């Protein structure tokens, strides 16, 4: 991306007005790390939103509110009861990038390999939009298609709300990559809601080996109402493997991608069940 101008609006309203006026010649800048890789070289004006008080994590009733420009490293280091997002953030990129890259930047424009959309889909997060179409969107609606389209008119993502896990709930997240810093080959996140050994409900989401992050509805259906056993998890993993269009990549066939995804679904479910059964951290 080629920057021809760089502005620092003094308020959210000023940022929205500037973006509305600039139209396609404006570009929101939070951490800015993704901008260096965007192949479009049309000159744009960077609108820096990192000084507008949107960097915070606050516990509120039943959940955690995370400001859109909160760096991934802050989320990774945050600890609180029934909080789960630190695990996936530790697996994203490197220390230096986590210090700069923000949660909002990670999900305002979704790259196919992004990990956070997968985690937020599984956890049932809500996204707050500021501007003309202000409001709160659930993860399913927000990630139904490329979110960047929502922000073309100057609207801004301001906050992500992640529900705290209730008793009996657990989350498991798995990212498969060549090295700790590499982009994901497949990322899976699962949330299980257990009552004793029975699975009351499940949310399973995947990303990276498919064109866009999504929930795996067939895997979820194979879990609901069943006993939380390895056999159930294996059946759910197979169902998940069958329902998505897994893509191969250099040195990796589509079949292998699917195999990796099924293994990741199984592992994520096993971790989620372990958590639901009493991990307290």
């Amino acid at each position, binding site marked *: 991306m080629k920057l021809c101008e*760089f502005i620092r609006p003094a308020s959210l309203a000023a940022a929205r007005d500037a973006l509305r006026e600039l139209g396609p010649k404006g570009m929101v800048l939070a951490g*800015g*790390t993704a901008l260096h890789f965007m192949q479009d070289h049309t000159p744009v004006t960077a609108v820096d939103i*990192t000084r507008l008080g949107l960097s915070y994590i606050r516990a509120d009733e039943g959940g955690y509110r995370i400001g859109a420009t909160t760096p991934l*490293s802050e989320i990774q280091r945050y600890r609180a009861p029934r909080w789960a997002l630190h695990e996936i953030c530790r697996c994203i990129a*490197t*220390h*230096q990038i986590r*210090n*700069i890259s923000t949660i909002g930047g990670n999900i305002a424009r979704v790259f196919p390999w992004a990990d956070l959309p997968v985690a937020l889909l599984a956890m049932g997060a809500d996204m707050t939009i500021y501007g003309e179409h202000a409001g709160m969107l659930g993860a399913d609606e927000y990630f139904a298609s490329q979110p960047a389209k929502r922000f073309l008119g100057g609207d801004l993502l301001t906050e992500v709300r992640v529900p705290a896990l209730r008793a009996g709930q657990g989350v498991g997240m798995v990212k498969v990559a060549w090295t700790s810093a590499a982009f994901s080959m497949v990322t899976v996140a699962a949330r299980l809601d257990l009552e004793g050994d029975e699975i009351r409900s499940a949310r399973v989401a995947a990303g990276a080996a498919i064109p866009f992050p999504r929930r795996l509805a067939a895997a979820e259906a194979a879990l609901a109402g069943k006993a939380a056993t390895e056999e159930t998890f294996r059946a759910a993993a197979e169902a998940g493997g069958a329902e998505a269009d897994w893509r191969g990549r250099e040195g990796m066939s589509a079949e292998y991608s699917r195999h990796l995804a099924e293994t990741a679904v199984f592992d994520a479910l096993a971790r989620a069940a372990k958590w639901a059964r009493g991990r307290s951290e």
Partner: protein
Amino acid sequence: MMKDERYPKEVTFSLNGELKTFATSADEKLLTLLRREGYRGTKYGCGQGTCGSCTVLLDGKAVYACLLYSMQAEGREVRTIESVGTLDKPGEFQQELIDGGAVQCGYCIPGMVMSATALMESEKEFPDDVVKEYMDGNLCRCTGYEKIWAALQRVLERRRAKEG
């Protein structure tokens, strides 16, 4: 002085403890600005946020100067390898790297030292998983990391002894 029209913008930040104003452009990377201004200790390696040789501290946190626009540093505190030690007076970790024969081509070392500086200034305890987390964004293609790790551990050992 004639204004250089390649650099129509201005950015002011604290650099190694001194408040400075630089001419820059909206598109200039912090790394390019630093090297242009003579701070050559910060290396250009991959230029895409992978190798870590351009690591500097921004408000005490390790960041890649190649993935940061210079304008993002406005009003912040930037520290480069030049603030850590000199040829005559190397910093503590730098001396351990020398003594341990941990440096081969040396290109990655300024970045390694900056990441280690962030680690030592931010943390009170240094378990391996925390040390690895701070150092995971710095690649060395010569040494296989063993001697770098050992040199860092000798420094951390002394910190632990002091704390204990």
